[in-house]
């Protein structure tokens, strides 16, 4: 069974790589199968790990008499059922209820989180090295880096100014901001190359050592 699995996996791996040449029946085979299986997988997972523990079990506690709190789960279940109004074109607008709730929740969660995790932390991180400069514990290079950081943050943020025309000094500052952005993008790109190539190496390692290895072992 394990060998059979390796062969199936190798076949599908090659099917997908065939896409690099051009669209072909092998790729289409893998693509449609892949889409179907992942939808099925998603349903199974959200049923067993979402619906059962968070709705069904607490709701069932109502009948075993453990707690009446489960009744509250009827609200989200009811909201969830509203999605099926999409099957009747006259009632599709009912879908707005759950989506309005979820969008509202998302917006409410976002404001304090973004303020704390992003604005507060990133501003503090930019200022903090200067405390060390005051304490005299930084080397010349580190002082230079701290100053460069402040310049970089301010210039990059200037690039995003919308209500001011970018000309005169603003233009120059935002140009420096773009330079910082480009360096940032270049380094992130270069950094990612490593991870992506590692994935390919792992697949090739599988094809060469596991699959061809099993092939050699047969004889």
């Amino acid at each position: 069974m394990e060998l059979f699995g390796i062969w199936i996996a190798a076949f599908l791996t090659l099917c997908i790589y065939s896409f690099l040449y051009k669209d072909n029946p092998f790729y289409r085979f893998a693509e449609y199968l892949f889409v179907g299986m992942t939808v099925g997988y998603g349903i199974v997972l959200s049923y067993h790990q979402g619906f059962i523990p968070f709705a069904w079990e607490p709701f069932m506690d109502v009948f075993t008499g453990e707690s009446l709190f489960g009744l509250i789960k009827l609200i989200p279940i009811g909201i969830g059922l509203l999605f099926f109004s999409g099957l009747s074109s006259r009632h599709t607008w009912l879908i707005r209820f759950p989506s309005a709730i979820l969008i509202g929740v998302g917006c409410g969660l976002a404001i304090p989180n973004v303020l704390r995790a992003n604005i507060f932390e990133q501003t503090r991180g930019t200022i903090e090295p200067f405390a060390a400069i005051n304490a005299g514990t930084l080397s010349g290079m580190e002082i230079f880096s701290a100053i460069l950081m402040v310049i970089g943050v301010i210039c990059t943020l200037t690039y995003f100014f919308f209500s001011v025309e970018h000309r005169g000094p603003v233009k120059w500052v935002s140009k420096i901001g773009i330079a910082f952005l480009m360096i940032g993008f270049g380094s992130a790109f270069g950094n990612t190359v490593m991870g992506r190539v590692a994935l390919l190496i792992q697949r090739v390692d599988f094809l060469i050592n596991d699959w061809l290895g099993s092939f050699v072992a047969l004889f």
Partner: protein
Amino acid sequence: MKRQIPLILCFLFGVVMLLTQFSPHSLSQGIYEEVLNWARIITPFALVFSTITLLQTHITRIRRQTEHWQYSFLVFGGIAIMVVVGIPFGPQNPVFEWLFNNVQLPMDATMFSLLAFFIASAAYRAFRARNLEASLLLITAVIVMLGNVPVGDLIWNKLISLTPWADTYANGSSLMKQWILDNPNLSARRGIILGVSLGVISQSIRIILGIERSYLGGGD
């Protein structure tokens, strides 16, 4: 009615989720967690509904016999086998796991690994020193790529050994990479993050207050 109630719901849930984050009281925390749980309960329904629409699409394709319609059976097959094996016996059962590990997973990993090819072709095509900005992108990418693999320092150390500063500047390639990641890269990212945060806050306010309501669609 079709617009007002959703707007009110959006406002209410938005404000409640916002304020409960400032309140450690057990009642507010209870509400906060319960609402988060609701989202988990709602999603499976939406998924089932979406799957029905997906099946409808493929049934239409098969009926009309549009190009490549035969492949639609594979979608049915894929969904059916996972659901039949997974729903009654749970995701931990060995058949489900076998299907996942030997069919779904290799495709997932292979699809992901296509990136190695695409990253090379994108770099070849786009990294041209057309102007100052493109040159900065190109140069930092090359420095970081080199600094990330042992061969980068190997080349650097060979070159530097020809100069009198061989000892002071050893492993310059990886040190340079580190400095770029720590400094100009970090400040650019901070700039982006701060800007995005302001955008998120502003969008969230517009939506909670109903100034931005296009997500609701039209009608009354």
